[in-house]
């Protein structure tokens, strides 16, 4: 047996750091399916999970992997899966099931270039909108994006905590570059790691309403085999969990599902500012692109452009209020990402024409060179 928290200093990849983060968070079930560049998460956790008392299973496809994860979470354990684009596409329907049934779970997407099989071994950030809207229907979801192996370790813990607190799937959108990057990762002592478990019901079992929200909008969660005789369905349902096929029922359920995120934005959203205090130009970025943007900010400053970086740690829900505030005092926004404009559109929406917004993007396969960012800033600096 090993300790769940592998305290110490390690030189590991982002993928391995992610698996260790899951173990440190208390993950006890992993349903996987191999796919480049997420395979190393699955491999590492497959060997380590039984050592901490958990269970690993490699399912027959990604649909089954997420279905098994949701089933295990309904039995009361913290559970996770990891994949990349094609597998992520297969998971979409069951993401909706987890949203609708309010089942905590963590899904990692180590992004590669798409569409279709794309560039399997080369990274991109092309699934950001899919993470937001990929399952059908209108919903709220939490999506994080780490910029280093150290951060992926911590974000995996945060992802579990948020998914348990708010009873929804939390997605970690990393990328091939971070997933395969080996770096120093420091894992603290177990007692320094804060882990949270879902709210649990108290009181009379026969009167329990499994979807009646508590004070923060989240219902306590009864698990299978506890004697609450709960019914859980992906159909629109009322607070008892019973199907309710009415317009009012749909409206009520949807306000519960979206409300628990919308009413807790301050608790959920996290961003990081770099040289932003006196900046005229804001670079908005996340994941590996935020990391290469740091060098771009420093270089631009050297060249007399007052640039700063707003790094999105939480990508969804989108830090709308922050962008709006910044829009009132800066001269322009540049979104740096490895796609052809996804988060850029969101920035544009929030800036609402107050100042110009630009995309610095490419469709994936390699990182965004900082030089290209600086060049674009210089070329556009006159306009802004």
């Amino acid at each position, binding site marked *: *047996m090993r300790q769940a928290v592998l305290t110490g200093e390690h030189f590991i990849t982002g993928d391995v750091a992610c698996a260790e983060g899951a173990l440190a968070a208390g993950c*006890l*079930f992993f*349903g996987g399916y191999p796919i480049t560049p997420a395979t190393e998460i699955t491999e590492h956790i497959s060997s380590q999970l*039984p050592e901490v008392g958990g*269970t690993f*299973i490699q*399912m*027959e*496809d990604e*649909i*089954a*992997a997420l*279905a*098994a*994860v*949701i*089933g*295990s*979470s*309904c*039995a*009361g*354990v913290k*559970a996770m899966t990891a994949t990349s684009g094609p597998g992520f596409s297969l998971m979409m*329907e*069951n993401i*909706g*099931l987890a949203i609708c*049934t309010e089942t905590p779970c963590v899904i990692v997407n180590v992004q590669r270039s798409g569409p279709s099989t794309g560039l399997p071994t080369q990274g991109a950030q092309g699934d950001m909108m899919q993470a937001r809207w990929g399952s059908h229907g209108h919903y709220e979801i939490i999506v994080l994006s780490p910029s280093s192996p150290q951060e992926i370790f911590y974000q995996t813990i945060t992802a579990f905590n948020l998914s348990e607190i708010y009873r929804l799937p939390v997605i970690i959108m990393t990328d091939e570059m971070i997933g395969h990057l080996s770096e120093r990762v420091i894992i603290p002592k177990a007692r320094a790691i804060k882990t949270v478990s879902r709210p649990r019901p108290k009181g009379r079992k026969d009167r329990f309403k499994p979807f009646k929200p508590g004070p923060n909008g989240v219902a306590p969660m*009864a698990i*299978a*085999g*506890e*004697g*609450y*005789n*709960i*019914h*859980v*369905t*992906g*159909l629109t349902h009322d607070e008892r969990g*019973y*199907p309710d096929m009415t317009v009012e029922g749909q409206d009520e359920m949807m306000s519960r599902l979206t409300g628990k995120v919308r009413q807790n934005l301050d608790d959920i959203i996290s961003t990081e500012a770099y040289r932003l205090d006196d900046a005229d130009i804001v670079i908005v970025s996340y994941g590996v692109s935020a990391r290469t943007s740091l060098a771009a900010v420093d270089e631009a400053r050297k060249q007399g452009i007052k640039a700063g970086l707003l790094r999105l740690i939480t990508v969804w829900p989108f830090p709308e209020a922050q962008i709006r505030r910044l829009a009132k005092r800066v001269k322009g926004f540049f979104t740096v990402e490895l796609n052809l404009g996804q988060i850029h559109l969101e920035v544009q929406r929030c800036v609402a024409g107050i100042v110009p917004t630009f995309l610095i993007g490419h469709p994936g396969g390699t990182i965004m060179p900082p030089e290209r960012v600086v060049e674009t800033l210089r070329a556009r600096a006159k306009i802004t």
Partner: protein
Amino acid sequence: MNQVNKQIKHPLDDLLRTDRIPHIWCPGCGIGTAFSSCLTALKSSGIDLKKTVMISGIGCTGRGAGYVKLDSYHTTHGRAIPFATGMKLANPELNIVVFSGDGDLFAIGGNHFIHAARRNVDLTVVCVNNFNYGMTGGQVAATTPYGIKTTTTTKGNSETPFNLPLLAYASGATYVARWTILHARDLTESIEEALLKRGFSFIEVLSPCPVNYGRRNKVSALDTLKLYQEKTIIKNRVHPMELDIDFERGVILGKFVDEEKPTFMDRYDKIYRPMEPMEEEQAL
């Protein structure tokens, strides 16, 4: 009169969400009979019902989970089995019954079925086979016999259906049986046996869908029951190769497989957690 009615209690009421009745099943549908056999078996088996879960996919039969007063999960189309697999692995103490239809378990969910059987996950899978997609109005299924008319095979089905017990057997199921809703007693006994069995158990229940399948092929619910009575033969232990469904020749019912094999969890524990049983031995 009302008062008297109120006092009448069905013997299965304590296992039903009576506040959800009336159910959605059509008059003459066989699902209700299969469902009540399942509930009777749950009761008579003596298993701890607090630790018993029913999981369904999507479809007419898939609504079963919504009516049983146990922890019950109505999942996505075709995914009841992988959902159940995750739940069983997370808490091996749970008794899990997957109650779903042929379209759900064998067309969209077919891949999951064969893998769960191969792994010998300790689940009881009850499949109500009514040979078509009832809920969506009667389309062709992976079980629809050759020549049968459905809304998507208006001149007759040109494909060959699955022999479900053969598929279950070939995939590694440790318990395989087939009954019809007319054989409610045998069916109940069989489900009970399957519930008590460790390993992947599969029971196919032939059942009429008079509203969609029957109407288009000019067979009433009663005609179907007559077929079940006159054209079925009980032959236990027959090789599953012989179990193709052909009502002209006669359809074989019975228990075909009942074997002991280590479950997924037995083997996983043995290989990945070898320390635990050794510690226990030392303690003794």
